Each structure stands twice: as structure tokens, then as C-alpha cells.
């Protein structure tokens, strides 16, 4: 019993530490990418087409002779910003919708949650595709499309938490003290939902990274010559055999980004 407890405790903190190391390394690379890249990520060099990894080009070069490492740095930044903005849109609207419906209940809850279910029923990528085909491609439209697609899942989590907390005695006594509803929702209850919300934000962020990569892979996200991990992966698949390093390094970055946040979320949950 004692040993099992110790073991699991150790395992979780290991997850946390590994997640922290990976995530901070990735964040460092992303921030680095904003200010410095070894080469201009859009500059082509015909002599270095599909060059293998070497000391001068750490991850080699792509089909236009652009430095993959520089493009990965820039691409990660783009992916990160899009994923971050997506999660912010999803979380903020999710909190508002979930909190109000969960707290008040009644017909408002029924109506809003059924609409929520309808949105939830569509795969988020499909929903985003529809949105993109209506409003056109581009970074900002992708953010908006993915953000909207992410709202229902957050709304549902927040709603569940609010239903749990609205019957707590301390919420009752706040109501009794004559505290206005909005203050109860955002000041009294919301801080209590943060533990659950935080780990779902992390998971949501991972999904957003993957969704952005998916969108860009399909060519509707970040537009060339700008780089994003998804669009690079899509280019790389044409050279899977002649220059496997292109796909491997780009894919590795996506994996590390997602893995880092997953481990972090898992570690934080405990």
C-alpha cells in the first residue's frame, strides 16, 4: 500500500518535470523564433535544395533550399499563436455560456445546451472547414473558426462544474447574504472550477495545436510563404523518401509541443 502510493506519487512528479522541461524548451524556441532565426525562413537557396542536416543547416533544407530549422522556429510560433488564440476564444465564451446556463438552469439552460449539442455533434475540423469556405482562408479566419468549434466542449465542462457548485452551502449563504448573481458566478464559484478548467485548457490547447496543423496541412490555414508546422508537414510529404528529415523534424516538433503540454496537464492535475 505504502509502496504503491510512493510509486505513483513519484511517477506523477516525473511527468510534471518532463512536461515542464519539454514545454519550457519549446516555449524558449518559439520566443527565440520571434527574434532570431539562423537564416531568413523565406529565403531560397537553389544550391541547398533538399540538403541533408549538417552543422550549417541543423535540420537540412526544403525543396526550395530554405533552412528547415529557421522555418520550424517561425512555424512553431505561428502554430502556437493560433492555438493560443483559439483556446482563449473557446475558454472565454465557454466560461460565460457554461457559467450562466449551469448556474441559472431552467429553460435557458435547455435551449443553449441543445444548440451547444448541435455544434458539438459536428467534428471541429469539419465545422472549421465550413466556416473557412464561407469566409475565406487565412490566419484570423482559422483562429475564429477553430475558436467557435472549441466553445461547446469548454461550455459543457464549465456548466457541469457550476451545477455541482451552485448547490453548495457557501453558494447558498452567498445568495442569502444578498450577493448579486453575477458576483456569485464570477467571484464566488469560478475560482473553484479552476482546477478542472486548467487541465482542460491544457488538453484544449493540444487539440488546437493539432487542429491548426490539420487545417494548414489541408492548405486552409497559414498561407505560403509563411510557415506553420502543418503546412510544412504537407509540403514534406512529397519528399518523404528523398528528404525524410523534412517530415521527421517537423512532425517531431508537433509531437513534442503536444507531449509537453499533455505531461504538464497530467502532472498539474495531481
Amino acid at each position: 500500500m505504502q509502496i504503491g502510493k510512493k510509486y505513483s506519487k513519484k511517477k506523477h512528479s516525473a511527468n510534471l518535470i518532463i512536461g515542464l522541461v519539454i514545454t519550457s524548451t519549446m516555449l524558449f524556441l518559439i520566443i527565440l523564433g520571434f527574434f532570431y532565426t539562423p537564416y531568413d525562413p523565406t529565403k531560397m537557396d537553389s544550391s541547398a535544395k533538399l540538403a541533408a542536416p549538417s552543422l550549417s543547416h541543423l535540420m537540412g533544407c526544403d525543396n526550395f533550399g530554405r533552412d528547415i530549422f529557421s522555418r520550424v522556429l517561425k512555424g512553431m510560433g505561428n502554430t502556437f499563436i493560433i492555438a493560443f488564440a483559439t483556446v482563449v476564444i473557446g475558454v472565454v465564451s465557454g466560461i460565460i455560456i457554461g457559467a450562466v446556463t449551469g448556474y441559472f438552469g431552467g429553460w435557458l439552460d435547455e435551449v443553449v445546451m441543445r444548440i451547444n449539442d448541435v455544434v458539438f455533434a459536428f467534428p471541429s475540423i469539419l465545422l472549421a472547414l465550413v466556416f473557412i469556405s464561407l469566409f475565406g482562408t487565412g490566419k484570423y479566419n482559422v483562429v475564429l473558426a477553430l475558436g467557435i468549434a472549441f466553445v461547446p466542449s469548454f461550455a459543457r465542462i464549465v456548466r457541469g462544474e457550476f451545477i455541482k457548485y451552485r448547490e453548495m452551502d457557501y453558494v447558498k449563504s452567498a445568495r442569502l447574504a444578498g450577493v448579486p448573481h453575477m458576483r456569485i458566478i464570477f467571484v464566488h464559484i469560478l475560482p473553484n472550477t479552476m482546477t478542472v478548467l486548467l487541465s482542460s485548457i491544457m488538453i484544449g490547447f493540444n487539440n488546437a495545436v493539432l487542429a491548426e496543423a490539420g487545417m494548414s496541412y489541408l492548405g486552409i490555414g497559414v498561407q505560403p510563404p509563411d510557415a506553420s508546422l502543418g503546412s510544412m508537414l504537407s509540403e514534406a510529404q512529397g519528399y518523404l523518401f528523398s528528404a525524410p528529415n523534412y517530415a521527421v523534424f517537423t512532425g517531431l516538433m508537433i509531437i513534442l509541443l503536444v507531449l509537453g503540454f499533455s505531461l504538464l496537464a497530467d502532472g498539474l492535475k495531481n
Partner: protein
Amino acid sequence: MLEVKNLNIEFHDHDAPEHIVRNINMTLKYGEILGIVGESGSGKSMTAMAIAGLLRRHDVTTSGEIIFDKKELLSAKRSELRKIQGNDIGVIFQEPMTSLNPTKRIGWQVEESLKIHKPEIGKAERYRLVIESLKNVELDNPELIYKKYPHELSGGMRQRVMIAAAMICAPKLLIADEPTTALDVTIQLQIVKLLQRLNREQKTSILFISHDLSLVKSICGRILVMHDGEKVEEGAADEIFNNPGQEYTRELINAIPKLEKPKL
């Protein structure tokens, strides 16, 4: 000050309407402690919640009248009700473990109803009032407790904090919904004594709800016995104890464990 006339409470979210409280009448005078006793599910808490205005209107239907300080509460507007809640009526709940918000400091929670009802009071004055209120419920080191989180306090201390929070606006009526059930016996006695002192010193009327007859007898002047949502009996505490008029009351009294020599 408080008069309840023909109070009926009914759940309507099931297929068949379910009566929880039927035709309850009661009065509470200034400075009086009235006890409501009954077993679990007898409707005593629901009656209290109705008086406090805590029933969700789309879950239950209520009829009758609750007159508090010449104002009718059951049909009152929310804004009207909000002025009374916390200011004139304070409530203490059964579970001291869940009645404080785990993410907020004690001081913040105690001063919350002051912030709502008396926004004109400044920060320094508010702090002074909170400290005074914590001192008043016999908590040592109120300055230290002000900064603590609920999980750092024991059950008895939390219940005292709850009383401090309920009393900070000096309400005319304090509803205590089984305030001692979750506490051990020695703490129970301290809390009861504290409530009695507050009643004596601040002239707060108390509606004391409990299933513990012996406890109710020691604190209340008058007792109302409830069973299955209906009033069984009402009268002075001694009278009910010495001369129970109803079979149910007699059974309740007989259910009080007595100190006997253990049979070996």
C-alpha cells in the same frame, strides 16, 4: 416579528406533485428562540429555506404567507428580498465543511455581506468590524484567522466563522439549520452557548432547527414539532417535554439516549 401563515411547499418537477410542507403556522417574537424539531425529511429545513427566501422558484411552488417585519416575503420582488437577506436575516448551515468557500480567505467571506449591504463603510472600518465579529464568536487570534483559508480551520472554528459571517450585519433573525449536527458534543455545547449569548446580548431572534430534542430543550423557549411536513405540536419547551400531547412527540422524547449504567 416573523409570522408564517398556512405555508405550503410543493415540488413540481415530478409527475405527481409532492407536498413537502403542509399548512405550517408559526410566530416568532423579538428576542425569542424558537426550535423546530423533527426527523429527517419532516420538512423543517425546507420551512427554514422558505423563510430565508432560498427556494428556487422554478423547482417548487409555495403558497401561504411569510411576514417578516410587516413585509410579505413569499411574493416579494427579488430586489426587495435581497435587501433583507443577509442584512436582516442571517443563516447558518449544517455542514461547516461546505459552508465556506475553499478558495477565499476567511476575512473576505465574513465581510462579503457588509460589502453588499453597507457599501458606504470604508475598508479600515470594515476590517475592524470583521475582527470584532470574529472576536465576538470567541475565536482567538482574529487577526490571524482573518488571513486563513477554511481548510486551515477545524469544524468548530468554521462554524464560529459562519456565525460571525451571519451576524456581521446584526440581523434581526438568525436561522440556524442544524448548526451543531456535524460537530462533536463538546463543541456542540460551546456553539449552543454562543448562540444563547448572542441572543441575549444582541436581541437576535433565533430559529433553531434540529433533530436533537435534548439540545433544543436546552436552548429554546418554545418548540415546534414537525412530522411529514405537518405541525404535530407547538408549545413551551418544558411543557412539551413534561407533558407531550402527541404520540409522535412522546416517541421522539423516548428516543433521546439516556445515561445508564452499562449492562454487563
